[in-house]
């Protein structure tokens, strides 16, 4: 995950508390989605950014996951994401992100 985004998310988490944040990913494949999710849940695995060794345990979803998709009007999803949903490996991406989400440390 790029360093600017890491910094921005860390700042928001410090300001509002990680439990107040939900991050929606748009990464186009399972590998990059997993790295992004790992960064937001367990910390930056490349140790390069602001989230290195910072376990925010954020709620993270991919835009193609049913949990997210069901929350937005179908016509909006269709207009903005529909074409990509046709070609990306949605299930593979969802499994990768879910796997990371489940590794979030228990709150408190």
């Amino acid at each position, binding site marked *: 995950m790029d360093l600017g985004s890491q910094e921005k998310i860390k700042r928001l988490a410090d300001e509002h508390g990680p439990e107040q944040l939900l991050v929606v990913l748009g990464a186009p494949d399972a590998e*990059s989605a997993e790295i992004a999710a790992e960064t937001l849940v367990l910390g930056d695995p*490349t140790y390069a950014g602001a989230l290195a060794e910072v376990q925010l345990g954020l709620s993270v979803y991919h835009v193609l996951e049913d949990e997210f998709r069901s929350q937005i009007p179908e016509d909006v999803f269709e207009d903005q994401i*529909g074409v990509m949903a046709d070609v990306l490996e949605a299930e593979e991406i969802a499994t990768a992100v879910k796997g990371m989400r489940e590794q979030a440390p228990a709150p408190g």
Partner: protein
Amino acid sequence: MRAPVISATSAALAHVPGLARHGSKPSRELPRDAELEQRFLGALRTFEQAVAYPPHQAFLGTLHPRELPERPWVSARSDGAERFTGAGELMPEEEFLGLMAAVDEFDLLTLGAEHAEAAAGALSRHPLAERFDLERLAKAGGDTERAAAERGALPLYLGADRLVGAMRAADEVDAALSAPVLLENLTVKASAALALTRLLADHDIEPESIDYVIGAGEEAIGDRYQRGGGNLAKSVAAVAGLSEASGADVKNFCAAPVPALVIAGSLVASGVFERVAVIAGGSLAKLGMKFEGHLKHDLPVLEDVLGAAALLVEADDGRSPRIRLDSVGCHRVVDGSSNPKIMEALCVAPLDRLGLGTLEVDDYATELHNPEITEPQGSGDVAQRNYKTIAALAVRRGELAREDIDSFVTKHGMPGFAPTQGHIASALCYLPHAHARLTSEAARRVQLIAKGSLFLGRMSEASDGMSVLLEANNHEGG
């Protein structure tokens, strides 16, 4: 209105493993981790490996990207790969440093006397030798250690550890004229000059016949009062002997080459100029950008070449591929930044306007980044993603069956093969192939699609892009 055509193209690569450490990412990461630096230096490629690397041969026109062997390409056999090809050449670092000195009009680059002599010797045997300013190169010879010790100077190495030169700052406090920035600018100038010189020599073009040069490289040269002041184009025109030419740069992040081509075509079509060259040099800042992913996967530092290209636009000559100015696709402000919306605006909307279907374009050339470079760092296969998006749009338009998406990608797309210097990857790298295929009637239409990430400059959330269709000259109906 006169129909503009692309009458000639060229491609050049410079293999610069020693300069790779001055890429933006390595220059930040290596100085703070000695062990990492050693691993980086130990993973640099030899010149022979760079020549044998199949994507480089595809870049230089020896094989079409669709003819690339199965990956991994790093371990592919060379099968007689040559430095010099029909479309251009891959220049070794020793010579390229010499070429940089030969185009350095402000004596900013000092080469060790021994290296300057060796480089001059090698360049004097180069097929383009008479077009290089070897006298200026000879004057660049000096005391490397003294030059490198100057305040703000940057030592330059050949390969991993042979100190052969130093780049000096032109001003002690002006960040736009610091040694790292000037090194970037000089590498663009030298690589673009190599591509332009090849264009002239390989196609028997009189340098004086070119009226205008448009620079589409990524670097924005300038000083503290106008950091992106520009006009590297004219400086390249000057060293390539284009005495009658003026020029200017077009800036648009990675998307610049297509707008540059469209502007060139428009200048010719309107009769403002007869012959316009579009040029782009390589981006030093992008070298080693994804090296951490490469080292992690036991790959060599794959971003060790500078890519450059040049092409000539002139009025219809009855044989060269036409630039269809009525096919220009624009990414408007209202189009937004989602990838499908961008592709709809750039790929589909212009075809609709011309009454063409997506299957009537033989080749789509879009962001052709080499996936062997991007995947290890988690950036995925950029080219394939774009082709799948185009295919998905075709499915939605009822022009393609869903189960044919993969075959569409194989037939109308191609594997990425360009260095990760976005402007070079953004369709420009395909020009030698497009020219060959359209001229030989192997293809009738090629759509060039370029996209740029404007948000990187923090002045807009927007993206941008432009597309244009090239068509075989003898094809009726255009």
